[in-house]
């Protein structure tokens, strides 16, 4: 196990400040001192916010909930990378020790497509919810939990569906995409439902409606840069997009 120490470190944070969606934003720089390398980045922001509150200054607004990488609420761009420079993790899973040599972290909200800054590092990601509303569900009445072996799902399909279902909808794929496309998100939802027996019945309608919703919400069409795959905290791959394109052709 990692040795817990009493070390402390300091780091400069350059953070995007914006009062409201309409106001102009700007970068503000802070020096965070005496922070434990074992603290998470969000805890460092918490401690900065306590100080700002005591000084009667406006604290930094940012989203978070579970703080263990499973809910998809957190997320901003850190030094040019959504969720930071380390693959396969969310913003809340970053710890200050990872940045001991960094000196300066530049924090900017996710941008792209319809994502709009609401306040500081918080963006409106409801466009993703409306893609789900367009077809990311199964509308058969399922009754009570069925007997486990009544619908057989081959192991490999179960795993593929599970891998796609790992998408936590954080929006990093949109933020990383030069086209502001939500294709990785949309594809993950399409695949997760379309390959399971329960979801198959509505697969054509679902695929069409969700892809159309993505465009209508103002996300870009994908042009296969592959940037999304490199930032996804759940390591969802371009294979998912490949699947959604294939489904799209017969939808």
């Amino acid at each position: 196990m990692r040795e817990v120490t009493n070390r402390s470190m300091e780091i400069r944070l350059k953070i995007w400040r914006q009062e409201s969606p309409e106001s102009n934003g700007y970068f503000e720089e802070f020096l965070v001192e005496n922070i434990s390398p074992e603290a998470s980045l969000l805890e460092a922001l918490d401690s900065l916010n306590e100080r700002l509150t005591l000084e009667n200054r406006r604290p930094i607004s940012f989203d978070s909930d579970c703080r263990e990488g499973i809910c998809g609420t957190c997320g901003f761009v850190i030094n040019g990378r959504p969720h930071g420079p380390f693959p396969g993790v969310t913003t809340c899973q970053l710890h200050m020790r990872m940045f001991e040599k960094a000196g300066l972290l530049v924090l900017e909200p996710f941008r792209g497509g319809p994502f709009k800054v609401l306040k500081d590092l918080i963006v409106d990601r409801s466009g993703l919810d409306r893609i789900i509303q367009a077809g990311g569900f199964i509308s058969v009445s399922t009754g009570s939990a069925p007997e486990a072996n009544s619908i057989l799902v081959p192991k490999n399909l179960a795993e593929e569906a599970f891998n796609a279902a790992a998408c936590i909808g954080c929006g990093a794929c949109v933020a990383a995409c030069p086209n502001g496309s939500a294709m990785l998100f949309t594809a993950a939802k399409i695949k997760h439902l379309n390959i399971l027996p329960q979801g198959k019945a509505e697969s054509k309608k679902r695929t069409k409606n969700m892809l159309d919703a993505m465009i209508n919400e103002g996300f870009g069409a994908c042009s296969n840069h592959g940037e999304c795959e490199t930032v996804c905290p759940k390591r969802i791959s371009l294979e998912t997009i490949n699947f959604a394109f294939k489904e799209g052709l017969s939808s």
Partner: protein
Amino acid sequence: MSKISFLKLVSSSTGLFIILFLILHVSGNLKYFGGPDSLDNYALFLRIFGKEILGEYTFLNLFRIVLVIAFILHIWSTYLLTRYNAKASPQYESSLAYKSTTFSSKYMFVLGILALSFLVFHILHFTLGIIHPDGFEYLKVYNNVTISFKNTIYFLIYFIGVTVVSLHVSHGIWSAFQSLGFNYLFVKHARNFAKLFAMFLWIGFLSVPIFVYFFK
């Protein structure tokens, strides 16, 4: 079918069709190395192909029409896709560090427009003979190729034009496989293979101009 599925289907299938044509085209070009008879006969062959059934030029013209339609559809669909992308493109104040975006993937539309300009020039030059250096004679293909590529300006235009097309294809070919949902194992490898393929295309198309300009 959803809007983007349809546009992707059109852009990818027309793009791949044009690439198939480019492969035919480059193999025809290599006949230059077989000497004047080899190349000129090939040019003649294209013109009289299918003559017994359709008459001279008919097959060639049909092929030309199909190509023009493919280009129009390709430009139309990619223009619409690019418009969605441009509208949604993020405007970061700090710069984003890209990892897998390439020069080609980023500038597909610009490369496409440049490719189109080159294509127009190319048709005005070799096909119609409207723009040409001195000594150009319609249908004397070998001779025309030789005098054109001895000319520095023509050589440079073709060098740049072919480079542009190859760059476009280096992203386009694998992007098309992905957009059409080909087997992902294949697509994954195609992503690397695409660069190699584009390089072969580049070398193939430039072999004649380089040979003429530097060694003849």
